[in-house]
């Protein structure tokens, strides 16, 4: 049964392989700076805050993982360069909470709207996990799917082993399982974009509805893969893990925290071609912590990263506050 279903899926997808992938518009990056070319002395990089005494969200125009929007039945996320058409008469049940301390985002949660005429009930959850902050020894979508599959709770049964498939030019890893006692079925498809693992989690009581929704993913628009080594990225900054380490940092100033709070402060930064910090995104931080870190980061200087001999922008992650805790020692090779 399992093999037949996989084959069926692959055959159906084969029809859509020729669909052109949608290239990401990179012109949006220049919008981030309010005064485009002035440097650090007078302009702090824009800081995008999440935590605090009240829930808050970003209010700048920079493209961010949590900045997706839903219009006319289409979910668009400029940061990830993806565009997903909702199933007919489905709607956004809720936008996600602010990003977590360990870099997890809920991009959107979809469920049948009041005009949905079908009887099948379910949900579609789209998440993104920042791979720089994941407290697990996994470094990409393939490893995360295998980890999840091998840690399934006993009340689930595997329906389909993990397989790799392509939607457009984008590689996905997918597997499915169900819960006999509740008769609910899940299929998960994961892919890597800008050093995040983006997951589509389809859940439905009706396996047929589930299957047809997964097949509809072929109509998704995804970032064009521009060069080898980019993790599903478009022509944006190169994402590099732990770039802010060792010899890459020419000048470094430690943040001075007013109060030591012990919460992790995960931060993503974009470094410009000259080696200065161009954008700071706080996934989770208190206001006083963002001030301290921003003040420090504006004085950091990085060695530019070269590709084909030319400096390019780099996106990387730094964890201030607590050091991360990892479940077990990192493994060397990807699990297949």
């Amino acid at each position, binding site marked *: 049964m399992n093999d037949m279903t996989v084959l069926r899926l692959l055959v159906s997808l084969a029809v859509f392989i020729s669909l052109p992938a949608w290239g990401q518009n990179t012109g949006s990056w220049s919008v981030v700076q309010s005064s485009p070319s002035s440097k650090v002395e007078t302009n702090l990089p824009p800081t995008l805050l999440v935590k605090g005494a009240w829930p808050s969200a970003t209010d700048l125009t920079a493209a961010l993982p949590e900045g997706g929007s839903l219009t006319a039945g289409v979910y668009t996320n400029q940061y990830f360069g993806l565009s997903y058409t909702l199933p007919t008469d489905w709607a956004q049940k809720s936008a996600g*909470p602010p990003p977590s301390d360990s870099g997890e985002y809920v991009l959107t949660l979809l469920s049948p709207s009041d005009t949905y005429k079908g009887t099948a009930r379910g949900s579609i959850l789209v998440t993104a996990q920042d791979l720089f902050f994941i407290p697990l020894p996994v470094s990409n979508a393939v490893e995360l799917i295998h980890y999840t599959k091998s840690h399934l709770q006993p009340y689930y049964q595997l329906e389909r082993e993990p397989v790799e498939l392509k939607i457009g030019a984008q590689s996905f890893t997918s597997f499915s399982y169900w*819960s006999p006692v509740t008769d609910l079925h899940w299929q998960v498809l994961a892919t890597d974009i800008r050093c995040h693992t983006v997951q589509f989690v389809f859940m439905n009581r009706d*396996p047929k509805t589930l299957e047809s929704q997964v097949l509809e993913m072929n109509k998704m628009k995804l970032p064009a893969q521009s060069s080898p080594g980019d993790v599903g990225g478009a022509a944006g900054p190169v994402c590099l893990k732990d770039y802010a380490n060792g010899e890459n940092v020419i000048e470094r100033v430690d943040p001075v925290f007013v109060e030591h709070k012990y919460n992790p402060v995960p931060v993503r930064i974009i470094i410009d071609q000259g080696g200065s910090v161009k954008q700071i995104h706080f996934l989770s931080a208190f206001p006083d912590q963002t001030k301290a870190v921003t003040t420090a980061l504006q004085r950091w200087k990085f060695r530019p990263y070269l590709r084909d001999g030319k400096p390019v922008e780099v996106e990387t992650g730094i964890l201030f506050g607590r050091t991360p805790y990892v479940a077990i020692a990192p493994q060397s090779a990807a699990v297949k």
Partner: protein
Amino acid sequence: MKTDSRQYVSREAGRCCAAGKATELLLHAKTILPRIVKCSSLFFAVSMLVGMAFAQTDPGVRSSTGVNAGTPLPDLAATAGAPEFFANGQTRFEQVEVVSGGTNNGLGPRFNLNQCSACHSQPAVGGSSPNANQYPFIGANPESQVIKDGIVTNSNTIPSFITAAGPVREARFPFVISNGAVTTTPDGGVHDLFTVTGRSDAGNCSISQPNFTQAENLNDIIFRIPTPVFGAGFIENIGEDTLIKNHNAIVGNNFGVSGTFNYNGNDGTISRFGWKAQNKSTLLFAGEAYNVEMGITNELFQNERPNPDEEQNFTGLPGDCLNLAGSGYPEDTTNFKATSGSNQFATNASIPSDIVMFAMFMRFLDQPAAQPNGYSTATTTVTAASISRGQTAFGSVGCATCHTPSLNTDPSSFNEDLNKKTANLYSDLEIHRMGALADNVSQGTAGGDQFRTAPLWGVGQRIFFLHDGRASDLLTAIQDHCPSSVNSIPNQGTGSGSGSGAGSGSGAASEACTAVTNFEALAQTTASGSTVASQQDVLNFLRSL
């Protein structure tokens, strides 16, 4: 596009499989075969008219099994002296405090109530908010009776958010109110409901209650209900590594759940007590409550506490409201002279201060006993089979991702019953982002929208749910985990204020939304002969805890 989860569920009721008459033919669950659902169109029409009536209902407080909480650890006697310390702590927990002239002095000048066990009483001493009409019929909200019972004089008025049938509540103002307007300066402290003004043991102290009506009108007030303290010793003794390993185990879950911990500022370790997991230990929990809720200074919190705005305005408390007990500060101290008696342990137990003995009482309370074999409530009977299905469904739909069924304790120096034992607490002790449930109060490293996963042990005999007791029905409580509107703070009176400073927010949702959506995807009830779990099974399971 509708986002109100309540309306969503009622549309569910209308759309298919109406009240009690679902006929679903299920080809057996062992193979993956299409499931055929039959819905009667007649019942569809009927239930549309019924509107918000659901087929699935909260069974209500479990009553047939007796009261299943409030007893000490079963083998407490194995530790010599521990039973005496437990008994002494319980007695002190039940003492009525006065301002001066008695044996338990120091109450006030501001307080919420004068007796720990009055607020912490459902279904037994150590619990939560009682009600006169629900098992075991303990009584009306004690805060609503303070004038009648002579605890305060009629210099006080009962705030509108305290009702006889409602929950015991403390009130906080998320932001400082200045000149009749809400500022952006965080407040978040407890504004005690009542004052000692006019009491015969309160001398000339004359202060007024906070202006709750103004705060309600400005939409700058939130509430907290008492947390039950059953099983506190287990929670105290769960190791850091256990919590961290449990946290890591759920990374990559398919419910969008990603919590964190509240790290205490003293030593950076994980704190676990309170609605935001802001308190590290039972001792801290006891000391804070004694001073904040009852105004009794102690060896952990030695100074009388002005109202948050008395502090902001640098006025502090008036001089004739200080040291009302007359014996100086702190008002609760170690007793250098033990009470005499023939039992050496009972004598020993009289020496520590009240807060130490409160902590000992809480620490030695056993975890509530779940009843998986079935039970009855005032309205229905629930079978073991339903409970079992519900328990599995609770995990499958994602609730158990935050409400972790059990965690193991570390070795214990107190008693064998706490030593490497399993606590069936149904909580990961993490703080999670709860969207519009946000109360805009930061505590420790918990932000305004983050709350500790409330332990569900004992929930079967609780009456009020969520941090402010807004739900008295489990189904509503579940739906409220994915609240619809931004900054919706219920029971705010006629609040038409701008609620400014409460954060523009983005309408960011709660981490629980996927699990709630999945829960709502279940059938409402389980047809007889079916083995597929329903929402009703989950409710039945919860009331078995």
